[in-house]
């Protein structure tokens, strides 16, 4: 056990170094790409003439050479200071980010937990009961492919407008406010978890060692639980790493349809308003989440199945 842990840590060190470089690359890229987009944060002042806009550009230091601005950004980044919003005067980027991320996370975490639990249970149940595929697959395909811009308004129309059971938007009605947005996010996650686990379990169940165990008289449910599940979880983990990151980063469509002040909606509006510091900070945050969670998934994979050889992990 001790040896395995050492091996795990050793294998993860190069990955961790690459992660730091990747995060730096993401923030740098978003810094330059956001500034390359046409227009600027003070274009609304053009109706007063070019001088009005240019005054604001000078006051915000946006007239400095791009590399100077980048140097300033890096130094701020190093000190954990993302500066102030360009369009919301006097509001620190960190405040905007943290407020919106808290909201997105409070929808994403329950959605992920429910999605994973229900998806896994459904898959295990289907294998144990030896369900025929047809109906089950159609249901999964629907849950997986129906886009949020369709499911969200439909659920809202049904549960809020017609039945009046739940609010149609906002986050101020307590727990009920979170039910519908959560449900919209849960559906595709549950379906994907179920599908991946189903495939992996079926494959494991027909492998020679399991067939041998079955011949020794072990029941299906016990086989699934103690033999097939641990390694069948790996593809699910690999799917979940980016999914968890993206869910935590905020869901643009769901947040817009339900008037939720989350980070997805903040990202879109900051991008439209050319609020560079907010865009870069959010992109960096999402990058950090995706890279961090992938690292975690790699570690878990190695731990669950030490035979795994992940590119970059093995010397």
């Amino acid at each position, binding site marked *: 056990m001790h040896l395995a842990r050492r091996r795990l840590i050793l294998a993860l060190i190069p990955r961790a170094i690459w992660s730091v470089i990747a995060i730096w690359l993401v923030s740098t890229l978003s810094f330059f790409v956001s500034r390359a987009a046409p227009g600027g944060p003070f274009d609304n*002042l*053009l109706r007063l003439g070019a001088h009005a806009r240019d005054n604001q550009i000078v006051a915000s230091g946006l007239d400095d050479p791009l590399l100077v601005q980048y140097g300033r950004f890096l130094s701020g980044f190093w000190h954990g200071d993302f500066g102030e919003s360009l369009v919301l005067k006097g509001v620190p980027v960190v405040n905007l980010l943290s407020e919106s991320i808290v909201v997105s996370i409070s929808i994403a975490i329950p959605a992920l937990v429910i999605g994973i639990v229900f998806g896994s249970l459904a898959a295990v149940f289907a294998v144990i009961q030896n369900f025929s595929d047809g109906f089950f697959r159609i249901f999964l395909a629907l849950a997986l492919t129906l886009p949020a811009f369709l499911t969200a308004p439909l659920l809202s129309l049904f549960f809020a407008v017609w039945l009046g059971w739940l609010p*149609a938007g906002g986050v101020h*009605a307590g727990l009920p406010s*979170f039910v519908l947005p959560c449900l919209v996010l849960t559906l595709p996650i549950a379906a994907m978890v179920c599908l991946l686990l189903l495939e992996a379990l079926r494959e494991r169940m027909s492998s020679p060692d399991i067939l041998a165990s079955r011949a020794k008289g072990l029941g299906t449910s016990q086989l699934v639980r103690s033999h097939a599940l641990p390694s069948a979880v790996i593809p699910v983990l690999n799917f979940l790493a980016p999914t968890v990151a993206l869910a935590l980063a905020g869901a643009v469509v769901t947040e817009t349809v339900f008037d939720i002040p989350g980070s997805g909606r903040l990202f879109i509006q900051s991008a439209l308003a050319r609020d560079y510091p907010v865009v870069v900070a959010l992109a960096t945050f999402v990058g950090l989440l995706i890279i961090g969670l992938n690292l975690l998934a790699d570690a878990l994979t190695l731990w669950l199945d030490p035979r795994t050889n992940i590119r970059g992990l093995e010397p």
Partner: protein
Amino acid sequence: MLAVIFAMSFASPAAAQDLVRAINGNPYSFDPHKVYTAPEFEILYDLYEGLVSRNGAGELVPGVANDWSVTSDGLRYTFQLRPSAKWSDGSQVVAEDFKASLERLMTPGTAAPYASLFEIIESVVAADDTTLTIKLANPTAYFPSLLALPAAFPIHGSLRESEAFTSPAKFVGNGAYQLDYWRFNDRAELVRVSTYIGDVKPAFKRVIYVVSEDENTCVRRFQSDELDTCPQLSTGLVRELGPGLGAQLRIVPGLASYYLSLNTNDPVLNNRDVRRALDLAIDRQTLANDTLQGLFSPMESWVPTGFAGYPPAPVARNFAKLTKFQRLQESIQLMTNAGYTPDTPLTLSLAHSTLPDEALVMQEIARMWEPIGVRMEREVRDFASHYAHLGTKQGYQIAAAGWIADFVDPLSFVGLGSNAASSTPNYTNFSDPVIETLLDNAESEPDPQQRMVLLSEAEQRILDSHAHLSLVTISLISLVSDRIGGWQDNPLGVNLSKYLTPNE
């Protein structure tokens, strides 16, 4: 951890006595000198009160000034301020507050979008706490109407050097309501000021402005009784909704229009005949009655109807008497002379925003121009990018624009067609010395009737230039719940919360 997160998210469930109004975009500031969008204006009307204010019907009424007088040359206004006017911190609103705020507005460093409207002010003198004298460079009949705009609201001494307007802890205003909570993309909560003394006592203790930029979401939340109002719906959505909402659906013609600006720096559009051909081929009746389902009205002039005393004599397009067929015939002839036919068409770019009604109208216009030999290439941008693009006056041939009057005077529209009036954006490079002279003369004309004559002559020139093509009058389409009383429709769309009451 989850419990903590949820607890943090429950700010305050709306109580029955709250007024919940939707706004279709985020306010970016509560600084009267920085705001320029409809949602910002709506909130500021509740947070502040100018020398002059607007009543429930949108008409001018005394605000902080309970009386004012004008010298016979129309140049010197003297305002008597109510001693009972208070800031939300309890101190008195004095003449010096208005003087200092107007000076802040005029300081170029403030970069106030509405500063140019106030360039007519020559000097402001606060003789004592309750007497304010404003001297103008020109007699400006609509001056009181300017003073009701947010740009002329007083700013408390503690905020004049600051940018902390969005912080409820630091906010001080003089309106019926005070800022209590604000979060981006979420809501602004306003609470009634106990020391406020005005023409009415506000009925709602709390007013909540909910940011709901998607009109479909807004309507669903309205239908589930979460919102009391929804602003500016598109005509397409109104059709989908059908008659189910009854009298809750409010439609009122606004002092507002959609128009096209033709970039006259473009070698093709510099040709007046081509511009006339394009103008002739637009069937405004079809746009208003079919495309927009009769909810908007066709515009036969440049200035929408609804300004008192204007026009003094009818103003109309010089082809108003031609039939639809004759117009099309002339249009085709002009285009053929210029070398364009449906087989050898002229390709023009048309920039417009993603606003549903605007996009619908532009699609229809592209269709109307096909038979005269015009092929449209539509360039669609989001609302903010579109207007930023127009501000550059470059890189487009034809631009769609919408305009809502800021002050109730025909100049708010006539100025759009000229570079002379700095108060309004002219998105084309078109300039006509005759129009500019007429507007200059109107500015210094002391006789109000003669001034209207000069403005209407300028309007006729704008129509004859075919450089700006008015299309339809925009209707203000909103939802107002039958739980709310006191809502009076008006063409400016100004409805202060203090005039609204809960219906039992």
